[in-house]
């Protein structure tokens, strides 16, 4: 044997490990790391290792009690981590579960000497490996040494360099500017003309004038392997995945299929062997993601420029850590990659780790799938219609859905259903235009439309590079549609359509029936989905995991348990406005049910989350969250016995929207009734309700046409707030200043509202306050009041929220508690609700630090903005900072236990001796063309929390964690709309006091001069003199920007470039004066006097 007989030497198992989380949710780094981190903490504790966890993101399960031994919700900076290390004295640190954030932080900690200084061992993958994988140059060298091909590339910094690179690389070539985001300036050059254009713009866009010219492999197949390796050099691949969209579209933005569909065994093994060679050469200990490009088949290859020379595959990239793809692979196969990676990190070998799925075999095996998995990304362009929708090498999706079935067609159609894009099922067709076959978020529908119209799939493959196997599958779907249109809907046809993944609704459209009629016919024929288990072994062994997907087959494996059961409806893909917070709630709901002795059944379609981990609930169904799928699961769980009730309060708008269909179908709902939900959601009913109870809300009305809109606005007075009814996250919501604007809005809004009415409200520029509450029908418990830093008009999801409300008068607090209690009781809420209020008395901005609390004039002016009869985005935050387990209380209430029986009482919960600030985090740098200003429409993707004893350090930490901290003694560019200039005086003073150098556009500069302060005037006119506003941002003259707008089109357009450039330069850009003031205030005073402590310490009081 060429393997010397050596029992692998055991690694000393660490006693205490610091696990680094991934921070806020941003595009490219989402809930998958909560899933990974949570699994890892559990796995480490199983091994008897004490776990210390740090993450800045409160909306995570991993930061909950019971997951890690000690939890820090603190900013992820070197300074903070060093303080945690000094305090906790861990002997190991595990960064590979915290995404790119964790990895980068590990490198920084090592470089800063922190790890050496405190004698902390880096667990999992060694530092040298991280560097070798992250540094393109080093990686290429290493691949060269082990004989793995990488696409040829050249670093270019000059005209001559570009000429040389062109000779070496040839065309087509990818031009990637160094250190720019969104690939600004670069692109794929197919012609000489394009090459020179991109070389020019690329070098100009790069702050260091450097571009990477790389052989373009656009059109090649993109394939990923998830690989595991332990310290004894045992290696396995968990799964491979093939991208439907070929190379050139980021894997995160590609439709992905597992396992690969078009690779022969030879090719599968070729790439598998390469992946193992790479993980070995890198010395990764844990999980690793390898991305490869494989030569396409004939039809596509013929469309590519001559690329016959060279290897059959290239290594594109390696991520030496768990990743989005590894979460997908875990869910697709049942193999818990993060869990196994954590065990490997503390010295376990793959053959020593049990396979949690079968309970019998070990982790040293490769999952066998007997189904097909399809992932489709969820993009934010339904919200950002103006954004650049094209897809390329920079990821743009906020989330994803996964569907499982026995064929690709069925899995694909189920995935489309799972996307939950209103009015966009598989039959929807986009408007054709010149670029519609290029990669963009709607290309799948474009392709379906094309095959429907008779375009040959091979032709589509030639145009798009999508393998003909996939385009032919689309054609098979279109053929089935044609049959449904043409043939009578007999049993066989219906069976085949269901087997191909067609929804009842879709069949209804094609056969001229309602969804209910199709469902009834299906019932008559006795056609019901069966449920099959995801068991990691294709049925070879008996498995213990209750993880199921539906399919139309013969044998059903998910037989009813006959025990008391409740169904938790999850929240689907992560999108702006419905994020990880709802997964947090769903997970807690499942746990609370189990603790109460009720079997929990989870339904969800999102592979990134903790809720879809197979050991979160008693049973997991990976299904679209549409009425058909949810009702089928409920029927399956009922069997011949009792029908389990559903919980719709925790899965965001997705779940709550299902309440009406479930109720109509006579299926029981736990908690607030469908009627209560309807009253809160229906504008008319809700206004009646408020009027009946004497609770004020901003005057307004729902209108159906422009004439009525103008009339209503006239009556209530401008500014008004307009929006389509029944939408999530304030979509298409605007503050309108005058009649002209209103007419413009009315003509555009109807599209977004899809025929529904438009709501017009009086816009109150007051302070906004938010509460969550739990109600048992007798009492209403409010754990705390959250006050927004930004005035109303900035969406609550985009505002900084401060707990406890620091500027509230007693009258205001009393009014809030009174209204909340009466609303809860009046609506007969059982479980959670969330209310936003606007307070119109006093200044819009009152510094929490100035101490001048107003006594109020005796009359609280508190208006209800909205009531959400469900859990909200702030539930994780408020639960964490008050210690009130909101979801648990709510679930127990639903099960019939009163608050009193649970040891709680109504009213406002005692104020904690802390200040906690929740700050939003945006992903705007990834979304070219999207305007970043804050308004009533939500734009943030994630959140962080700063917690401390005082406001100043708490807000400083929140800003630090959100990347909005102003540097000391910096320079700032101010450009403020007229309306805010009064408030601006205070801001300018703060900045001046902090020693800031001020730059401003003309009007603002005049105001600053008038204050007697020094200011440099910078022109807004981009075509005229230099430096203009864009110059001072791009060249680094200023460290931050304040650009406030009134909301009218003109001022929005003026500032657009300022905001985009600042965003791409990644410097703080404040569009609300209130945020800017909070940030400026935190500069005045010591900025490093914040504490770093476990969450529990803060809650236990000083």
């Amino acid at each position: 044997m060429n393997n010397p007989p050596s029992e692998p030497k055991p690694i000393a198992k660490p006693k205490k490990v610091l696990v680094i989380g991934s921070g806020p949710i941003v595009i490219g780094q989402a809930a998958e790391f909560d899933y990974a981190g949570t699994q890892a903490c559990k796995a480490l504790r199983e091994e008897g290792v004490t776990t210390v966890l740090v993450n800045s993101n409160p909306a995570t399960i991993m930061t909950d009690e019971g997951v890690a031994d000690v939890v820090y919700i603190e900013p992820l900076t070197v300074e903070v981590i060093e303080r945690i290390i000094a305090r906790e004295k861990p002997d190991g640190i595990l960064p590979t579960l915290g995404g790119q954030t964790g990895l980068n932080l590990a490198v920084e900690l090592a470089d800063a000497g922190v790890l050496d200084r405190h004698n902390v061992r880096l667990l999992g993958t060694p530092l040298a490996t991280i560097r070798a994988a992250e540094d393109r140059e080093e990686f290429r060298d290493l691949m060269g040494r082990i004989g793995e091909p990488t696409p040829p590339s050249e670093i270019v910094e000059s005209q001559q360099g570009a000429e040389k690179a062109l000779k070496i690389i040839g065309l087509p070539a990818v031009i990637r500017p160094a250190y720019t985001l969104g690939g600004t300036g670069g692109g794929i050059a197919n012609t000489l003309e394009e090459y020179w254009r991109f070389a020019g713009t690329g070098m100009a866009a790069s702050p260091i004038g450097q571009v990477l010219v790389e052989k373009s492999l656009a059109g090649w197949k993109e394939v990923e392997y998830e690989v595991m390796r332990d310290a004894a050099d045992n290696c396995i691949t968990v799964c491979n995945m093939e991208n439907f969209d070929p190379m050139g579209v980021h894997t995160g933005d590609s439709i992905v299929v597992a396992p690969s569909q078009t690779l022969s065994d030879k090719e599968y093994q070729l790439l598998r062997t390469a992946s193992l060679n790479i993980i070995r050469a890198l010395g990764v200990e844990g999980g690793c993601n390898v991305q490869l490009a494989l030569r396409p088949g004939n039809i596509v290859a013929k469309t590519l420029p001559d690329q016959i020379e060279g290897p059959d595959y290239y290594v594109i990239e390696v991520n030496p850590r768990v990743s989005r793809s590894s979460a997908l692979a875990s869910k697709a196969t049942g193999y818990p990659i993060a869990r196994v990676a954590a065990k490997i990190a503390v010295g376990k070998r793959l053959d020593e780790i049990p396979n949690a799925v079968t309970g019998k075999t070990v982790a040293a095996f490769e999952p066998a799938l007997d189904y097909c998995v399809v992932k489709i990304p969820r993009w934010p362009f339904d919200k950002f219609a103006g954004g650049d929708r094209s897809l390329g090498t920079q990821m743009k999706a906020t989330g994803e859905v996964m569907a499982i079935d026995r064929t690709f067609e069925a899995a694909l159609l189920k995935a489309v259903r799972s996307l939950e894009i209103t009015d966009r099922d598989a039959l929807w067709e986009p408007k054709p235009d010149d670029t519609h076959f290029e990669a963009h978020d709607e290309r799948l529908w474009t392709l379906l439309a094309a095959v429907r119209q008779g375009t040959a799939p091979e032709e589509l493959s030639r145009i798009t590079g999508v393998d003909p196997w996939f385009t032919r599958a689309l054609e098979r779907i279109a053929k089935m549609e044609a049959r449904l249109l043409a043939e009578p809907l007999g049993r066989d046809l219906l069976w085949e359509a269901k087997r191909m993944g067609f929804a009842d609704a879709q069949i209804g459209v094609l056969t001229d029936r309602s969804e209910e009629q199709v469902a009834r016919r299906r019932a008559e024929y006795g056609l019901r989905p069966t449920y099959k288990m995801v068991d990691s072994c294709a049925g070879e062994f008996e498995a213990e995991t209750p993880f199921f997907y539906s399919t139309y087959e013969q044998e059903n494996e998910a037989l009813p348990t006959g025990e008391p059961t409740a169904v938790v409806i999850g929240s689907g893909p992560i999108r702006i406005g419905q994020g990880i917070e709802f997964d947090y709630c769903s997970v807690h709901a499942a746990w609370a049910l189990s603790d109460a002795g009720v079997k929990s059944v989870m339904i969800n379609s999102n592979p990134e989350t903790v809720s879809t981990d197979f050991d979160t609930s008693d049973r997991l169904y990976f299904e679209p969250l549409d009425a058909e799928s949810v009702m089928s699961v409920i029927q399956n769980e009922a069997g011949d016995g009792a029908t389990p009730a559903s919980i719709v309060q925790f899965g965001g708008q997705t779940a709550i929207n299902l309440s009406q269909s479930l109720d109509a179908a006579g299926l029981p709902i736990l908690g607030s009734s469908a009627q209560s939900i309807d009253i809160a959601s229906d504008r008319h009913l809700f206004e009646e309700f408020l009027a009946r109870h004497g609770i004020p809300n901003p005057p307004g009305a729902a209108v159906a046409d422009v004439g009525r809109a103008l009339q209503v606005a006239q009556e209530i007075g401008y500014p008004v707030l307009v929006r389509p009814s029944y939408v999530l996250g304030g979509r298409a919501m605007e503050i309108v200043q005058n009649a002209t604007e209103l007419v413009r809005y009315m003509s555009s809004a109807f599209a977004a509202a899809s025929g529904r009415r438009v709501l017009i409200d009086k816009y109150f520029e007051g302070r906004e306050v938010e509460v969550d509450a739990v109600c048992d029908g007798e009492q209403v418990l409010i754990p705390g009041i959250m006050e927004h830093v930004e005035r109303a008009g900035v969406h609550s999801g985009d505002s900084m929220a401060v707990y406890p409300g620091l500027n509230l008068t007693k009258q205001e607090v009393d009014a809030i508690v009174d209204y909340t209690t009466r609303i809860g009781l009046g609506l007969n809420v059982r479980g959670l609700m969330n209310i936003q209020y606007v307070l119109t008395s006093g200044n819009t901005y009152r510094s929490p630090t100035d101490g001048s609390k107003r006594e109020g004039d005796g009359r609280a002016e508190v208006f209800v903005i909205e009531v959400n009869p469900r859990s909200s985005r702030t539930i994780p935050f408020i639960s964490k900072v008050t210690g009130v387990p909101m979801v648990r209380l709510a679930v127990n209430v639903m099960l019939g236990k009163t608050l009193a029986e649970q040891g709680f009482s109504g009213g406002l919960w005692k104020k904690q001796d802390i200040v906690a600030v929740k700050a939003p985090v945006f992903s705007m740098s990834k979304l070219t063309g999207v305007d970043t200003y804050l308004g009533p429409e939500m734009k943030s993707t994630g959140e962080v929390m700063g917690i401390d004893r005082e406001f100043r350090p708490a807000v400083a930490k929140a800003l630090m964690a959100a990347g909005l901290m102003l540097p000391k003694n910096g320079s700032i560019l101010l450009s403020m709309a007229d309306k805010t200039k009064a408030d601006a005086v205070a801001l300018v003073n703060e900045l001046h006091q902090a020693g800031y150098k001020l730059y401003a556009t003309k009007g603002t500069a005049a105001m600053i001069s008038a204050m007697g302060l020094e200011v440099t005037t910078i022109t807004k006119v981009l075509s005229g003199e230099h430096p203009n506003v864009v110059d001072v941002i791009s060249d680094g003259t200023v460290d931050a920007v304040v650009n406030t707008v009134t909301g009218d089109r003109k001022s929005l357009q003026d500032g657009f470039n300022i905001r985009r450039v600042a965003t791409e330069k990644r410097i703080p850009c404040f569009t609300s004066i209130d945020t800017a003031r909070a940030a400026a205030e935190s500069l005045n005073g010591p900025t490093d006097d914040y504490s770093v402590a476990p969450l529990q310490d803060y809650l236990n009081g000083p």
Partner: protein
Amino acid sequence: MTDARVKRYLVLEDGSVFEGYAFGADAGTAGEVVFSTSMTGYQEMLTDPSFAGQIVVPTYPMIGNYGINGRDAESARIRVAGFVVREHCDQPSHADSEMTVDEYLRSQDVPGLWGIDTRALTRRLRTRGVMMGALGSSAEAAVGQLKAASTYGDTDLVQAVTTGHSYRWTDSDGDRQHSNSDAGQRRPDWPRRRVLVSDYGVKYNIMRLLQSRGCEVITFPATATAEELLQREPDGILLSPGPGDPELLDYAVETAKGIVGKVPVFGICLGNQVLARAFGGSTYKLKFGHRGANHPVKDLRTGRAYITAQNHGYAVDADSLPANVEVSHVSLNDGTVEGMRHREMPVMSIQYHSEASPGPRDSEYIFDDFVALMDQGMDQGMNEAKSN
């Protein structure tokens, strides 16, 4: 394919009936029904002689996506008795594809069945064990087939798949050539190691991997005696994989007895079982076998785990082995014997498929080990062994 669907049935020994649609040849068939969990490599599976006498059910539901090509066959023809899939692809997509699975089965007269719940079938075989089954145009026809068929374990299937005459393997640039001309005496100037293969149902890739390691490979019928083999002055002999119950192969066991200790011997799969019997050990039938590309095996000497390709329904009884034979590898799934080593003689033996095809190539190093064993055998290894 949707237009003219013809019903076809699978009937199992235990009476269960699966109704699906016909593809492949218009014929009935019977055999032992087994499942394989390999997700790729259906062409290799179809042509693997070890599947002779069996109706093979891939657990992966979509079969035929990349078609059938001129390169992936592992023997001269399709060997399975029948093929049962959930879905087969009529529009394969691959540069090398020459025909569909359906056409391939038709061209070699092998019937298939599609459209059934193959996972339900797999679960049945897992819980009740593999059993005989038959395909027919009606359930009755299938029952007839089943009754008429001889039981899998009673038939010497090696005779059905072994070569009729010896040949020298040549495989250059992917083109297979069989030639009988050069299978004679060893030429003194021949620089390479000469490996003889006892063909119980050898796969091309075994011969390819040996050849690529500088071996001259000459393949012999399974019935070749020890004398016949030793006469060719081999540097090593490989006992190949193959189908059926090793208990039926007394002639092969005799041959094995005659060669061990005289020349380095490498047994793979059925070859491993034959060697076990030659050393006085015994074999037994597994409930549903090991068939797939994901089987973990532990090398007991190094402690290392390997993912292997496997295809066997019988296993060596560890307790039956004499003291001078040690178990070198075990299955991490069920602890069964996956490899043996003789303490004194240059004999190595594995139950899994180091040639993979289909499956992971992680164990190809075993061919290097065999080459090393042969090289050692020629120098001191044999002498040591002899003096013991």
